[in-house]
Each structure stands twice: as C-alpha cells, then as structure tokens.
C-alpha cells in the first residue's frame, strides 16, 4: 500500500511538472510573438522601415548561414538581427554555424573569415561580413532580383564615384547605391546611352555636355529613359536646355535661406524644411535634406504632352533666389528688390511623361532634377535626410517604388565620443571607488557597534 507521504510527493512532483510545462509554454509563446521596446539611441536594434519593405518583397525561400566563432562580441547582434528578419518573413530560415565546430561546412562554402554570412535563394548567393542591417538587406536584394544598372556620367567634372575624399568625393554615394543592389558603372557618353541602362545619373557636371551627348540623352529620354540630374547654379547650359525641353527649368540663380541655414554655416547651405510628403521619393523622409549652393528648379506640367511635374523640395518662406553669382565670393547675402526673387523657392522636382517615341504603350520617361550636387558628396550625404533622398530618387527611377524608406542610422566613428579631463577622472575614482563604498562601510560599522552596545 502506498503511504500518504508518497502520495503527497507524487502530487507535488506532478504539480511542479505541470507548472513548469505551463511556464515554458508561456515563455515560448512570448518568444514566438515577441514584443520589443527598443530604448537604444536611434532605435539601433529595431528593423528600419526600409528593411521591412525589403523583407515584404521576399516571396521565395531564403537560407542564411552565419559563420561565427564563439565569444565574438558581434554574435549577439548578428543572432538578434537574423532572428528578427526570420520573424518578419517566415520564408527566411537561418543557421548560425560555428566555424571551429564545422570547419568542413565553412570550407564547403568557401568561408575563411569569422562573421561571414552567406545568403542563398534559388541558386543565387550573396556574401557579406561585419553584420549590419544594411548589408543583410543588400544581400537579400541581390539574391531576390536581378540588379538594376545605374550609369553615372563622367567626363565633365562630375563628382567622382571613386574619389574617397571627405569633401569632394562621391564614394559614399556609390556605396549607398551598391547597398541597394544596384550595379553602378561610370558612363562615358560616346554614341548612344547603353541599351541596358536602367537609370542614368549626372552628378554635378562642372563643364557643359557636348551637343552630341545631350542629343544622345534626348533620344534615350524619348524612348522612356530614366534620368537623374544634380546640377549646380550656372553650370552646363546645354543640359539645362535639355531639361527645359522636358518641362524642368533650372534657374541661373542661387538660393539663400538665412532662417534655415546650418547653425554658424554659410547662407547658401540650407535645410529644406518644405518637403512634399505626397510624393513617393520624399514621403518617407524622416529628416529634411540639406542642400548647399542650390539653384531654383521649376517644373511645369504639360497635359498635351502627357507630362506631369511635381515639386519635391522648397526653401522656407523667407528665402529668396539671387541672380548675383558673386555672392559666394562676397558673402553679402541680402535680398535686392527688382533683382532677386522671393521664396519659397523650389529646388527639386520630378517629371513623368509619356514617352513620345516609345514603341510600347505605357512606357514612361522619368526625370528627377535637383538644383544642387553637393548634397550627394561625401561631405553632405550622411547629413539629415540626404542619403534617403538620393537612394529613394534612384529607386523611384528604377521603379523600385516599394523600397523607399528610412535606412538605419549608420554608426559613424567619432559619434558619441566622451572627453573627460584628468581631474574629472580623479573625482570619478574618488566618488565611485572610495566615497560611496566608504559610506556603506561606515554605516555598517555604526550598526555593528550599536548592536554590540545594545547586547
């Protein structure tokens, strides 16, 4: 016969296992249906809008293998990132593979460095290392779709994609476009625009284009080409004329906005506070862009030609456009009645028009014109909404409408630095290592003595 004590033990064991099972089930449910509050600066550990848009595009299974080593400080971030993307889109499956534990698998994938991550889908493969959301999204785009070809015009003093100079270069622009899975190539316009070009970008020509070049661009636009022009004031009149024939007038002027200039900065470095939130390119901008030395860009509709023009960005209400090119030398930023034009001044516009010579119905010519090219240089591209504006523009031209969103903030060296003097460090040592524990020690001694005296 089973004793009462044994029955009690049995009941206790059963109840304990039952509660354990219940709690594990609840924890598992919260694991599956997790809710996150990201209190890190800049929501660093939450997927960006852009990432969610990329993940929503994935319609076929994707396998991600991250090759790591134990004790790598990047592991928690990488694992968390992969876990997050797999939760957003269940078609994404991932494995975290320890290279030291699985050297054969690492060799099979040709992986030699810790942190390398391989993304595969339908026979396509993209690799990256140094885990970041941007790189993962870029790899996912690469395996999901054929890369679009972006040709960047050169030969007229345009901003150089291979130039890494902090001020003058445009290498950051190239990197940003490649991250979006675009094939970026330089274009020397001899003859026609290449037939496989999805978008042509002209980043701030300093000298004018040849007649044959503008003619080639014109022919290409007539076939439904997609052109992105960043043009500085008083530059490339032939190109300006070509744009004018497509309904975009680039003014021979410089925009001044003293109210919205950078603190302590030049009067022509302007934050563009008037953003058109109705258009796809600018609707997702969380921060306004910043232009420096911009010209007015006015877009005009033409219903008969099937042309629809939209202004994207304007300067503030107290701005103006001056026709005095020497203002940059003199720095004398004053409105002159009769010469200058009152603001707000449009500085960026887009045009969609029915391609007149298109062989197929529905083919559209698309143009994006900004009255400034400095915003795309290494100096300014990471400012405020500049990078999103640039990448959104190219995506819109390449008809990747659903990939427009805010990209994650990049960690920039030098941000959040801490400068502390020796005297501050000494006071930190005194307060943290000596005084605070000392107070606890003294209170402890006082309590000890009091108890002794009491007994």
């Amino acid at each position: 016969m089973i004793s009462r004590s044994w029955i009690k033990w049995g009941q206790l064991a059963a109840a304990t296992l039952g509660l354990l099972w219940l709690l594990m089930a609840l924890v598992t449910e919260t694991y599956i249906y997790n809710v996150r509050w990201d209190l890190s600066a800049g929501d660093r550990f939450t997927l960006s809008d852009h990432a969610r848009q990329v993940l929503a595009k994935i319609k076929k299974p994707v396998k991600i293998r991250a090759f790591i080593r134990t004790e790598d400080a990047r592991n928690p971030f990488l694992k968390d990132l992969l876990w997050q993307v797999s939760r957003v889109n269940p078609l994404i499956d991932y494995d975290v593979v320890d290279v030291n534990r699985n050297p054969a698998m690492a060799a099979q994938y040709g992986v030699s460095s810790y942190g390398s991550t391989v993304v595969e889908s339908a026979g396509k493969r993209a690799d990256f290392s140094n885990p970041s959301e941007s790189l993962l999204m870029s790899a996912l785009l690469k395996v999901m779709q054929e890369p679009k070809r972006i040709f960047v015009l050169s030969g007229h003093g345009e901003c150089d994609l291979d130039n890494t100079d902090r001020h003058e270069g445009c290498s950051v622009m190239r990197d940003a476009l490649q991250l979006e899975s675009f094939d970026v190539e330089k274009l020397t316009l001899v003859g026609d625009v290449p037939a496989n070009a999805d978008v042509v970008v002209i980043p701030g020509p300093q000298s004018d284009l040849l007649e044959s070049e503008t003619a080639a661009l014109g022919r290409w636009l007539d076939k439904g080409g997609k052109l992105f022009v960043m043009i500085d004031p008083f530059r490339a009149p032939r190109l300006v004329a070509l744009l004018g024939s497509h309904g975009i007038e680039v003014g021979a002027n410089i925009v001044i906005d003293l109210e919205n200039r950078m603190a302590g900065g030049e009067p022509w470095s302007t934050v563009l506070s008037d953003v058109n939130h109705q258009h796809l390119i600018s609707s997702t901008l969380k921060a306004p862009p910043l232009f420096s030395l911009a010209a007015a860009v006015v877009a005009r509709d033409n219903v008969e030609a099937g042309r629809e023009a939209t202004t994207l960005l304007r300067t503030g209400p107290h701005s103006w456009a001056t026709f005095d090119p020497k203002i940059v030398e003199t720095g004398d930023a004053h409105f002159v009645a009769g010469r200058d034009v009152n603001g707000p001044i449009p500085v960026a516009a887009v045009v969609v028009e029915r391609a007149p010579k298109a062989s197929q119905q529905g083919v559209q010519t698309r143009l994006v014109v900004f009255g400034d090219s400095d915003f795309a240089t290494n100096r300014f591209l990471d400012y405020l909404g500049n990078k999103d504006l640039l990448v959104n523009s190219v995506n819109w031209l390449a008809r990747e409408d659903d990939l427009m969103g805010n990209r994650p903030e990049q960690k920039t060296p030098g941000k959040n630095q801490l400068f502390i003097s020796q005297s501050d460090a000494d006071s930190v040592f005194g307060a943290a290592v000596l005084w605070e524990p000392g107070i606890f020690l003294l209170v402890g001694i006082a309590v000890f003595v009091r108890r002794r005296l009491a007994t």
Partner: protein
Amino acid sequence: MRSFVALLVKELQGFFMLPLVYFVGAVFLALSGYYFYTNLNAFITFGFGESIVEHLWQRLYADIVRVIITVIPLITMRVYAEEKHLGTIELLYTAPLRDFQILAAKFLACMAVFIVIVGSTALYPYLIWRVQHFDLSQLVAIYLGLLLLIASMVSIGIWLSSMTETQLIAAMFTYGVILLLWNLSWNEAAVPGDWLGFVSQLCAYDHFEPFSRGVVDLKDVSYYVAIVVMSGWLTMRSMESRQWRGRR
C-alpha cells in the same frame, strides 16, 4: 493586510539592522566602482570611434552583474534558513498570514536591499552626465533588466534557503545554481549544435544581454518572471511540505 505590512516592516528592519548587509554593499560598490573606473579609462583610451552607449554601459553592467551573482546568496541565505535554525519559523507560521504573504514579505524585503545597493550604481551614469550629456533611455532598459535578473535570482535563493536550516549550505547551493544559469551557454562547444538554441533560452546571461544594449524584449521579461513564479511556488511547497513531512 495589516499583518502583511507588519511582517514586511519586520523583515526590512531585520535586513537594515544587519551589519552584513552594509559590509556586503560596501564590497559590492567598491568592486563595481573599480569596474566603472577601469572601464571608463579603457573607453577613453581605446574607445575612439565607439559609442558610449554600446561600449561603456553595456560592458560595465555585464561586469556588475558578475558581482551581483556573488552577493545574492549572502543576502538570501538567511531568509528561511536562519528562522528554521532559530525555530522562529514556527511562530511565523502560526501568525494570521497566508504562506504567500510570508513569502512576499521576505521577497520584497530582499528586493529592497538590492534596490538600495544596486541602485547606488546610478551614481556612475550621473558622474558621466555631469561631464557630458547622453541618451539615458538605454539605462532605463539596463536597470529594468537588473531588477528582473535580481528578482529571479533572489527568488531562487529564497527557495533554496527554504530547503535547509544551514545558511552556508543555502548560500553555496544558491551560488551554484545562479552561476550555472548565468554561464549555461558560455561554452558552446560543450553543447550539441541542435541543443544550442534551447540551452541559450535557459541561460540567464543570454536574456540579460539585450537589456544591456537597451532592448526590452517580452521574451526576456517573461523568462525572468517565469523563474520568479516557479521559485516562489517551489518555496511555498517546500514550506508546506514541512506539515505532511511532520516537521512543523
């Protein structure tokens, strides 16, 4: 309710009139302060290009948790074991209080001790804040994580204290269990690959790490809450079993 408040006050007095609590607090803060100072120096010297957020607070509080693990058994070991040893537990269980209320009073008193001791580490961010302002929201997540971590480990300590009359045994077992939970996924090579994910879900460190980055995930909160609930339930069953085991 009045009896519960009276017991809570008695428990609080019991802790805060104990020199051990202050000595433990002094050692904890000396070690934490030392970690803070050395981490700060390391950050200033080698941390260029890194952010305060990720590479000072994250590292510092992971170090502080290691000290907390050492300190928790010293505080929880006496909760039930001492009363059993002195025989005062019988008086307590004849008072007009439910088992849950007794446990809650002891648990809250323990937590109050740790809130005072660990809350004193808020001095470190304040010292930096005086020199240079920074985003404080990550620290909110860190202190929430610390509160949950301490609550879970205190509840384990109280449970193990309820199992024995010897404080030293309670302390040693508590330390062992907490250390095991904390280190469970550290040596990944010892775990078969398929089990790694499961082991990671049991590991207290893996659930604290997101808090240290400023991320509050419901899955991590639920993990710590589950430990508190399970340990609390086991504590009550442990005390209840004294009746049918004939030890009351």
